[in-house]
């Protein structure tokens, strides 16, 4: 075989050894993408939960005793990623607030992880298949006092050799009794810069 044939085949040989391994998504072994990675979603959740609890608006006696009922309102994805996993951020924030014993989320309506079973159970009242005594009386479902609205924001920048994606989350909580926002915050931005090299060395 001629030497030039070996050299031409070199990229194929180098690219042949592919492996799959399990990694900790919170570690440095995880893939860094130009989007928002799992550990960064968790970082956002932690920051926003902390900011929400630090502001102490949930302790306002005007809102009544704990837990206060909250509903997830519209989640707006304003990024370049069509399948942005908002469920991760919302799920972690919801779980944290529930754990704090200050908030409970209404699941009968809203824009995240709603559960139709409450409504369906109510609808079974005239179905002879079920024991009527076990069907909850009408008018008992909780109405949320607070509404949590979310926007995922994307800022794009580009120079001759580099491009950058910056993402952040904006959240606001509205008191549905008055329609006034009583808490607003943004996450810390996550910025990713892409630099294209000339040669692969």
């Amino acid at each position, binding site marked *: 075989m001629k030497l030039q044939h070996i*050299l031409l085949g070199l990229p194929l040989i180098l690219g042949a050894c592919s492996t799959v391994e399990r990694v900790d998504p919170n570690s*440095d072994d995880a893939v860094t993408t130009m989007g928002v990675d799992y550990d960064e979603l968790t970082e956002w959740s932690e920051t926003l939960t902390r900011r929400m609890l630090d502001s102490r608006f949930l302790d306002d006696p005007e809102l009544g005793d704990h837990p206060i009922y909250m509903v997830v309102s519209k989640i707006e994805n304003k990024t370049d990623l069509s399948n942005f996993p908002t469920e991760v951020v919302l*799920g972690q924030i919801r779980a*944290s607030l529930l*754990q704090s014993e200050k908030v409970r989320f209404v699941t009968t309506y809203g824009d995240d992880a709603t559960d139709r079973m409450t409504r369906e159970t109510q609808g079974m009242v005239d179905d002879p298949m079920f024991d009527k005594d076990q069907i909850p009386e009408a008018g008992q479902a909780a109405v949320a006092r607070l509404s949590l609205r979310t926007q995922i924001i994307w800022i794009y920048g580009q120079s001759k050799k580099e491009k950058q994606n910056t993402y952040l989350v904006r959240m606001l909580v509205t008191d549905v009794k008055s329609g006034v926002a009583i808490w607003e915050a943004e996450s810390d931005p996550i910025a990713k810069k892409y630099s294209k090299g000339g*040669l692969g060395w």
Partner: protein
Amino acid sequence: MNRITLTAALLASLALTPACATGSKTSATTPMNTVEKENPTGMPREEWINKINTSEILAGKVNVTSVYVDWNGDLQRIQLNVQNDSGRSIHVKYLIEWFDEAGIKLYTPTESWNNVTLSKGQRLSLQGRSTSPYAVDWRFSVQESAL
């Protein structure tokens, strides 16, 4: 072998090899000056701490100078005041874990390593908040990171 053919083959090989493009978070590497009140008005409740250093190299870089604690109702929050004594800008990641009265680690939905860049000489306050009213103790871990 003809030298021109060999050179051409080598160049073709280089061109076919994927270029090393990277996707990374941006970082600030400029040294920093800090100014603050000589006698702060706030009276934080300082926590006694026990440092367990497994890396003497890192111990000389990121120093926890003090820890403040505060209770918001049943929920505890802490602030670790750290200083970068490494003589250069570094990326670190940190983790705060929470424990109940029995010393058992609590499930924290948002627990993860948080990344932060510390400029040369920078003092920074890192915060953590327990989301469980059963949390009474905490543990802070810090590690140099690639960011």
